[in-house]
């Protein structure tokens, strides 16, 4: 379509999902220079047609929603929390974990008229308890949420649970699973139309790689 540059900008979340995400893009032919400076926050793939930007996971929806990046990869935990208006055409099958409520093993099940909840996900937490009619005080923390119950700041936490090890180490156990979370490919609504061909190509290439991965896993002894 016309003048529209076919060049794509993809937002990559730094940290937990970064390595697996880059592997996935490498598998569809979007390879980064092996010797790139890890402090560099924007770089191109080898062909030079795709630009990667490396941002904090919670910033991926912001860049994509504003169209600064055409697409991005982000955990559904971040997506649920951001309430950003994005297309989510593909679940990438990486970074699977749960968003869960966890509480000290000895916490009584009932009898609380007001629950103090420590979390990095204030919106998810308040929506979840709100729908259940449970009054809560949300304590928004930016890290080490597992400590809050032990130190008496909160009765329970809402957090991302991968293996559950960190929880056990802090005397917590999952009491309710709010949602499953996995990395999603997200696309800006305008880019989806304006760069339709390249984005469609990217989606179908990623789909192909994911399918191959499934087949490989299934055929493993």
């Amino acid at each position: 379509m016309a003048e529209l540059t076919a060049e794509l900008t993809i937002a990559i979340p730094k940290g937990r999902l970064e390595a697996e995400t880059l592997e996935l893009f490498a598998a569809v032919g979007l390879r980064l220079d092996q010797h790139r400076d890890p402090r560099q926050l924007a770089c191109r793939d080898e062909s030079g047609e795709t630009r990667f930007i490396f941002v904090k996971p919670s910033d991926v929806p912001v860049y994509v929603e504003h169209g600064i990046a055409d697409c991005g990869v982000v955990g559904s935990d971040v997506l649920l929390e951001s309430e950003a208006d994005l297309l989510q055409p593909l679940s990438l099958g990486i970074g699977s974990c749960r968003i869960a409520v966890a509480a000290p093993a000895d916490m009584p099940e009932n009898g609380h008229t007001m629950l103090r909840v420590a979390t990095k996900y204030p919106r998810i937490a308040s929506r979840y308890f709100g729908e259940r009619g449970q009054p809560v005080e949300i304590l928004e923390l930016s890290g080490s949420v597992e400590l809050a119950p032990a130190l008496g700041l909160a009765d329970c936490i809402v957090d991302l649970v991968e293996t559950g090890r960190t929880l056990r180490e802090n005397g917590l156990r999952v009491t309710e699973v709010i949602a499953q979370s996995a990395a999603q490919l997200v696309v800006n609504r305008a880019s989806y139309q304006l760069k339709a061909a390249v984005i469609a190509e990217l989606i179908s290439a990623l789909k192909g790689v994911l399918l191959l991965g499934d087949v490989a896993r299934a055929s493993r002894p």
Partner: protein
Amino acid sequence: MSEPLSKIPSGFRYYSAREARARRVVETIAMSIFAGWSYEEIVPPTVDYYSLFEQGMGESEAQRSFRLVDADGRLLALRPDGTTSIARAAVTLFAKRERPLRLCYSATVFHQHGQSSADWRRESTQIGCELVGRDSTAADMEILSIATELLRRLQLDRSFVVTLSDAEIFSGIVENLGLDTKARDELRRLVDIRALSELERFLNAYTSADEASAFANLIQLSGKSEVFARARRVITNPRSRAALARLESLWRIIDSLGWSANFEIDLGDVSRLDYYTGLTFKIYVGGLGVRLGGGGRYDNLTGKFGRAEPAVGFVVELDALAELLAKEVDSNLSTQPESVLIPSDGADICAVFGEVIELRASNRQVRIDK
């Protein structure tokens, strides 16, 4: 403690210099195009009863408005929308006028909060047209043509895309599958965010795996005329089929005008289905991360104000458009002549003004120095 007066509430802003000029230029061009299609300008009231918007736009949209209480205790709203107010005027104030009614406007609208974080403006200006009293492909095409002319006149023809769909396609599918409101909303959400694998899983409960997958593929991508043949293979219910046929005849006109490069059929467009009753379209422009505008057919709206009449219309967001064009306004769109500098320092003030008034009489731009 008092706030410093320098602070501006979030979501509001000043426009000046290039941006202010770009807004004026765009608005002037739009209004002259609308007049060229015989649309009459209407200036709706800024404040109206909240219940009007609640009825017209639906509760969730209306709830985003700024509300205030009138002296008699009734709830008022700063208008969050232009169309509602105009639709009401069409069937009340202009009830006796000959049909079709062609109305256009440039109206500031207000929202307490946006629909998403990219939608940060709480005050924005919508420029639009409404064609009331005609239910035909010609009426739909007229609205699309006006929007297209505006985009082309603004020299965006190399970068704009208009996506087309019809609300009845989705409604027909929902009816055919026998979905209740909750399932309908979930299906709509999955189509809207193009979550294809989840969509397939959802549909598997209602239809065969083959059909579910064919439907997911159909809504995934927009396309040109080939979409119709693909859609007919997947969609068989008469209600959706009728909508597809309508869309196809519209496409034939677009194609015959040589416009198909800028148009796409996007059957995955399912926003505001409770509002639109036929054609829906969205306008995107390269360089702008958000939608520039859109429109469609809303045959159920005026009925809420006492008389059901078919209607179709569109809006573009002046703010987004002006932002995009502000960079070019001096070179391409400016109509301003060069200014004449008049020195006033030490000169006879009567002579200075005599000269200035004369220059202005011939419409030259003047600037009195010092």
